[in-house]
């Protein structure tokens, strides 16, 4: 019954640039590209950049289907080398950074993340801009009104779906817990 409707939103993510990339401790020269992955079947990739060295720019927009249960988007920077495609670094973009932080859905978010290589070491920064478009077809599960989002004019369109949305509005405690691994 539910299979008839597509339970997903559209994510528009523009891969802008990356900074300070290195492979094997040397700055990379060129041929870096980025894969943005929602899940194993929804992903997109930029073309490989030929200039810019360790600070490549792509400015390429990828449009991906994003099922409602999505919690992260993975960004993977790879480099074409003579010995194959090597992973330079990855970062996780939590959906809560795009949805549910007081801003209306149409807000274009400019986001940056620390990239970590396969050993978990810091390896540069990736810069993207992202926006969620309205649901493709809405198969609306039980909508839990998010008590925090009072100012949003488009809040009726928001099915809050198990996505860790927003932060505790606890002004008198100060702390914000996210449940994500804390990088040192």
């Amino acid at each position, binding site marked *: 019954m539910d299979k008839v409707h597509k339970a997903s939103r559209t994510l528009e993510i523009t891969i802008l640039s990356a900074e300070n990339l290195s492979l094997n401790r040397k700055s990379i020269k060129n041929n870096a590209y980025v894969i943005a992955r929602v899940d194993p079947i929804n992903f997109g990739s930029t073309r490989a950049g030929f200039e810019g060295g360790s600070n490549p720019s792509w400015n390429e927009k990828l449009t991906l289907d994003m099922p409602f249960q999505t919690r992260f988007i993975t960004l993977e920077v790879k480099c074409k080398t003579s010995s194959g495609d090597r992973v330079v670094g990855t970062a996780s973009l939590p959906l809560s950074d795009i949805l549910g*932080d*007081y801003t*209306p859905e149409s807000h274009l978010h400019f986001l940056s993340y620390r990239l970590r290589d396969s050993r978990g070491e810091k390896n540069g920064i990736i*810069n993207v801009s992202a926006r969620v478009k309205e649901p493709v077809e809405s198969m609306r599960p039980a909508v839990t009104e998010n008590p925090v989002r009072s100012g949003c004019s488009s809040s009726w369109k928001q099915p809050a779906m198990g996505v860790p949305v927003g932060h505790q509005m606890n002004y008198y405690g100060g702390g914000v817990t996210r449940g994500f691994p804390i990088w040192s």
Partner: protein
Amino acid sequence: MGLCYSGVRGGKQAIGGTSLQNPNSNNNAAHNDAVDFFFKSNGQQALFTQVELSLSASNLLDRDITSKSDPMVVLLAKKRDGKLEEVGRTEVISNNLNPTWIQKITVTYQFEMVQPLVFHIYDVDTSYHNKPVKSLKLKDQEFLGEASCFLSEIVTRHDRTLTIQLQNRNGHGILRKLGALTVHAEETIASRTAVDITLRCYQLANKDLFSLSDPFLRISRMVEGGGYVPICKTEVVNNNLNPVWRPLCLSWQKVVSLSRFTLIQENPLVIECFDFNSSGNHVLIGKLQKSMADLETLHREKNGANFVIQSSHGHEKVLKGQLFVDLFLEKEQYSFLDYVSSGFELNFMVAVDFTASNGNPRNPDSLHYIDPSGRLNSYQQAIMEVGQVIQFYDSDRRFPAWGFGGKTPAGTISHCFNLNGSASFEVEGIEGIMAAYASALHNVSLSGPTLFGPVINTAAQIAGQSLSNSNSKYFVLLIITDGVITDMQETKDALVRASDLPLSILIVGVGGADFTQMEILDADNGQRLQSSTGRMATRDIVQFVPMREVNSGQISVVQALLEELPGQFLTYFRSRDIKPHARHVC
């Protein structure tokens, strides 16, 4: 601002121009500390906007017996010490009580200053009519009237025009109708034109011992007297004798010279290529002198220009290394005043530190002591000075005002309570903030610890929610604190989230505490803030100034804090391609 930690990473950043394709970079479009410091230490002004004032008047007093008055306007600026200094004069118009002067007067608009202007209108006696206007002695002329206003009042109006009733000298009442003066402001074309330029070099000399040079370029404009003043520099490319730098955006304003008779495109620029050394002793590889027009020609003809260097004999040696211009694109950019006069607003918010380290307010030593003689304490001074500048850009004059770190009458310690003690967090006008502050000192007892997180999150929430209604509001939160914060990571997290919102945060440190942490938040050393989840700040939205350092120098707290605000504002709106509202063509 304040103490500058540049570090190697910071030192390698491009400064001055804007990185073209990376709206998330930390490059500040309008100012940067190193260049600012250079300018100030040489007594020169940093980036400024030239505004031309056109004047007209109506119903002027008729002083002449046989004909009508022959009016001329003299514009004066009121300095910080209250003295008036002449800025310029219009021409004399004969026989006209409703003149429209042709000669415009140019003033420098500086966002971070309150700029009071005074206009004096004189009736010039016929015997002086053929003399140059500059030579006229004002005491020999008949005074027709005076008008005063602030420059920001004029430029923030949507038609950039202000009409003021004329008064007697020094504003001593209006004994009879003296008429009115109308002032219209226009930015000069330089403020809106910029050039996107990509530079690269070929066959640079190697200055490093065990590797290759790490070149960067510094572009300077020539000034009177033959010296030159840096306007921007590229980032450092490591280990490369054929570097390609990221595109730069050079605004014409930066290139403008002091002489009005040369076209901006022909002003000579000096381009120096240095080999970066982490010690700071960068080695000059070579330099050359080209104007913007020359650079455009280089681009068009795809030619290279050779660098030269002074040899030890004093001759100029032509080097093998060449400069190429791969991209040269002139473009129109909307200026800060374009946005502001079309209806974009700055919304001012204040947060005051109520932690116990300030000292008991009844005690004259306390940072919160309210002096009965009327002398403002540091908190009041900061609120007054910043508020006085920003209030012109906030149309409804309703300012959210909070306190943090205090124990409210309800008995609980709050890290974000309404300063006026009521349910509404907004107060009316700067005087409203001062009144709420004074009354809070009576009702709230100082406590602690010092946490910024809640206040920043509240301000961010307001900024984020406003986006649902309007995308033309930019929020400015002023935090005044005496101490060291205890929630550094939460503050960084809050700032990283806020960097994606239309919000800037100004922090004033009062008292004598060690404000090293604040310098980290200010991120002027080039280190981007990182949250606990691995997210990085996309913009540097924090400006910090310790009050004590500023009091000893010549610049005020306000100037130091506010200088970067127009740049942060522009970076936010330009990166999202949000343009000023359409203007009605007059």
